[in-house]
């Protein structure tokens, strides 16, 4: 019997699970996150994985990792540098060590530190045996061999037993950070429902890891992170892609329209298709189309028929859909295009994040073809951004591009679940009768307020009409090559996007005396917010504002920008919003750009902003 271990309180921990693509690190991270959420900590996660499904085992390109930050206060990012690294093999250690703080805990699976595996990643000597890990708190653990021993009596293959080593690691970490394990047990029961022997084996591996923590002298201290003070209510942990899909389902219920998704599989957007395909019960129709163009084409056809057409994709897909988006601009039909941005150009780095599709969303079509553009700022916010995209599409009968990205799409955070009745009412009306004073139907006779034309799906007698991509005469929608009419229609299509009602931008400046404003959009909200908080804690004043609506921009934006000596715009691109702001408001801005495929590290933004503030 060992003596009870010392328990230490921490306010924040960042753990990174890293291993081979086949080691189950994403699942391990997910489970740890779920356990942590149950405990009431605030959390933020960052999965990071290669595009290859199974890169050669044990190599650097094959390393997959999952970072989770959890704290007893509200946090905005998954953390700059891990306090704990779990490295399942030498490649995982090598690929991640440079980002781990000195003094951090490193748990390594010693069984994988063989001569061959070390050579594979270019280690001349074993880092566990030389002094290259001096300054870290290294815990060498034979994860594989201990898992195999723990499962020796289980009627499963050696391969299946070995694969359970991630559960051993999860058990150990769950013990170390005092996590509740019930949800993982029930998860295993669900996941392996058809193979009870695997349920037993995985549970046993988890327990073995937990017990190892309890009994080994290697871990003298156990940690606790108290629940965060969060708003009362029901929560679930949610990724951006799932939140986005649920937001679309919610939009269907609140608009009483059929949600129709046309999609072609593409990383990192496919999970939205997977999620939506589960919700037929709520009337969602999904079509996996033959290509990106067919996907948006089918969505346009569905909208024409009175459903809400949606298409989900990533940058390369938006490029292919460009001509069809222009058609939807001309047809003036509701349509939601979701771009989960990834690193480009071309195939780029499909599993890595970037914000470099803003120019394409704003300008990437032939002719004058303006559309509304919005962006979510966090995983849970994807739910509300989806609803907002649908609101604009339905109200203004226009295509809306929603710019998510790999970071918010795959990252997760706790989501305070809303009451359905509090969600916006998105009901609209279809044309049911002729709208002209002469008793005729005019498909392009506009609502004077929204400038939207009637939505007139087929099926109503007396409203038969033809629409198309050719320029249309005002009001009648008949083909028109009249020069003055074209000029009028081009200006009207632009004016109706400009006329979309969007909320004013709000500025967070607790001191009220900041001279520097940091302006962001999309997924940079977390790192910018964390950096701003850190600066304020150090007595430096900075104002933060974040754009959800990128077209049209909030009406008060110019006025807000004019109040500050300096405006800084950090973006994961080469300055696309900065260009827009300079052109639109004729003010200079400080563009701060990173296109590494990884989200900003808040510490780096903090240093950069500090420089700007000091020189302002």
């Amino acid at each position, binding site marked *: 019997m060992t003596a009870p271990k010392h328990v230490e309180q921490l306010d924040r921990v960042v753990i990174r699970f890293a291993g081979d693509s086949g080691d189950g690190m994403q699942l391990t991270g997910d489970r740890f996150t779920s356990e942590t959420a149950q405990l009431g900590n605030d959390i933020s996660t960052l999965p990071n994985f290669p595009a290859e499904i199974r890169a050669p085992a044990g190599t650097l390109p094959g390393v997959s990792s999952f970072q989770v930050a959890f704290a007893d206060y509200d946090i905005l990012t998954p953390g700059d540098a891990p306090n704990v690294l779990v490295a399942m093999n030498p490649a995982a250690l090598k690929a991640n060590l440079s980002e781990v703080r000195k003094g951090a805990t490193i748990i390594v699976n010693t069984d994988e530190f063989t001569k061959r595996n070390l050579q594979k990643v270019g280690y001349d000597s074993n880092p566990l045996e030389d002094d290259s890990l001096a300054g870290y708190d290294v815990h060498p653990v034979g994860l594989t061999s201990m898992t195999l021993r723990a499962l020796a009596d289980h009627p499963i293959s050696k391969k299946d037993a070995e694969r359970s080593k991630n559960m051993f690691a999860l058990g150990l970490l769950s013990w170390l950070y005092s996590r509740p394990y019930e949800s993982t047990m029930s998860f295993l029961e669900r996941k392996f429902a058809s193979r009870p022997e695997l349920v037993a084996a995985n549970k046993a591996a988890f327990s073995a890891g937990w017990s190892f923590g309890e009994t080994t002298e290697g871990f003298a201290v156990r940690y606790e992170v108290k629940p965060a003070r969060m708003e009362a209510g029901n929560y679930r942990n949610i990724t951006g892609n799932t939140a986005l899909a649920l937001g679309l389902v919610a939009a269907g219920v609140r608009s009483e329209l059929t949600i129709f998704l046309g999609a072609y599989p593409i990383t990192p957007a496919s999970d939205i298709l997977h999620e939506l395909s589960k919700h037929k019960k709520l009337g969602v129709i999904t079509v996996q189309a033959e290509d990106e163009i067919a996907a948006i084409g089918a*969505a346009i056809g569905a909208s024409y*028929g009175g459903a809400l057409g949606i298409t989900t994709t990533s940058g390369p897909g938006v490029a292919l859909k460009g001509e069809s988006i222009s058609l939807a601009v001309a047809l003036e039909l509701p349509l939601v295009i979701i771009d989960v941005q990834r690193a480009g150009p071309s195939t780029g780095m499909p599993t890595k994040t970037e914000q470099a599709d803003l120019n394409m969303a704003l300008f990437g079509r032939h002719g004058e073809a303006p559309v509304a553009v919005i962006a979510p700022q966090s995983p849970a916010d994807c739910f509300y951004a989806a609803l907002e995209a649908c609101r604009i599409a339905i109200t203004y009968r226009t295509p809306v591009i929603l710019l998510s990205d790999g970071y918010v799409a795959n990252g997760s955070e706790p989501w305070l679940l809303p009451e359905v009745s509090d969600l916006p009412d998105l009901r609209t009306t279809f044309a049911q009768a002729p709208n002209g004073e002469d008793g005729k139907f005019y498909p392009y006779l506009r609502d004077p307020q929204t400038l939207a034309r009637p939505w007139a799906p087929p099926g109503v007698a007396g409203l038969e009409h033809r629409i*198309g991509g050719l320029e249309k005469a005002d009001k009648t929608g008949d083909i028109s090559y009249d020069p003055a009419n074209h000029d009028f229609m081009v200006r009207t299509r632009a004016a109706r996007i400009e006329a979309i009602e969007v909320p004013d931008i709000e500025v967070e400046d607790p001191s009220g005396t900041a001279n520097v404003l940091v302006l962001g959009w999309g997924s940079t909200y977390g790192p910018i917010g964390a950096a701003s908080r850190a600066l304020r804690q150090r007595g430096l004043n900075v104002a933060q504002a974040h754009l959800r609506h990128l077209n049209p921009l909030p009406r008060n934006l110019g006025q807000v920008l004019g109040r500050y000596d300096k405006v800084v715009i950090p973006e994961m691109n080469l300055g696309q919003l900065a260009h827009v702001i300079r052109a639109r408001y004729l003010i200079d801005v400080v563009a701060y750009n990173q296109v590494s495929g990884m989200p900003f590290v808040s510490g780096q933004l903090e240093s950069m902003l500090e420089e700007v503030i000091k020189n302002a």
Partner: protein
Amino acid sequence: MPSAPLQLTAKDFKSDQEVRWCPGCGDYAILAAMQGFLPELGIPRERIVFVSGIGCSSRFPYYLDTYGMHSIHGRAPAIATGLSVTRPDLQVWVVTGDGDALSIGGNHLIHALRRNVNLKILLFNNKIYGLTKGQYSPTSEVGKVTKSTPAGSADYPFNPISLALGAEASFVARTIDSDRKHLTSVLRAAAEHQGSAFVEIYQNCNIFNDGAFEVLKDSETRDNYLIRLEQGQPLRFGSEGQFAVTHPANSFGLTVEDSASAEPLVHDATQEDPAYAFALSRLAGPDLRYTPVGVFRSVSRPSYDKLVRDQLEKAKAKASDNPAQDLASLLNSGDTWTIL
């Protein structure tokens, strides 16, 4: 109270738009045949939709007083798929041409056919690009001299019937613009078919490819060139009934025998195996001898919209009658926790 049967006429299907095809274009005949045929369907105008792509043929929807969309190049089958799946109460026609359907839109055509989307697809084949003023098309014969191929085209053409059969189409037919009676009979068969009905219509472009199908129309030649496919009828044709379509024992394909005594095959478009229909589609040579017209294949297979709706209905059977409540349950599913 049952409503009175619809009494529509061709005039009811004429829109107020001025028809803008070249004088003498084969499209006029097809439009007139369609306007003449539609009242027969007994479907109210508001339940009929024509979706087209780009090209001369694709102006078709503007001239019919139904619902219609003139979309973008090649994409009509995709757009119509979204409409058909969400609105099974509508009858959806796709009007396309050889460039629209087989070049830029080839992918959408084959996938609509394999899915068996409930669409009636009319491909006006004039073997030329008309609206862009006379370049060769994917159905133009090898060596075609056009503006873009002054030395003759080097590419081998598609056979649209063979292509549709290869794409698993459940209904495949061919007809000719100038033969209104035959054209109408094929439209009728297509309209009755559940699923994708693919109809190739040989259409004359009198400006850029005049007379492309003349041997099939001229009373001097047509009887010796055309094989009229009729369900259950022997495949015997010719001005004197001198030709018979037979299946040589040593061949996978069919042949035409100039023999009054040869035993012709009896046409059966309902064969599950598409090999027979495919063999028929290979009979014609570059000189159009011998060109079958009529229904090559007509088999029954559940349409895509029906399969999708069946899944939807099955799932909806588990729903409550309160979508807001079902949504609330969905949002609150998975591992949730409560902060007090």
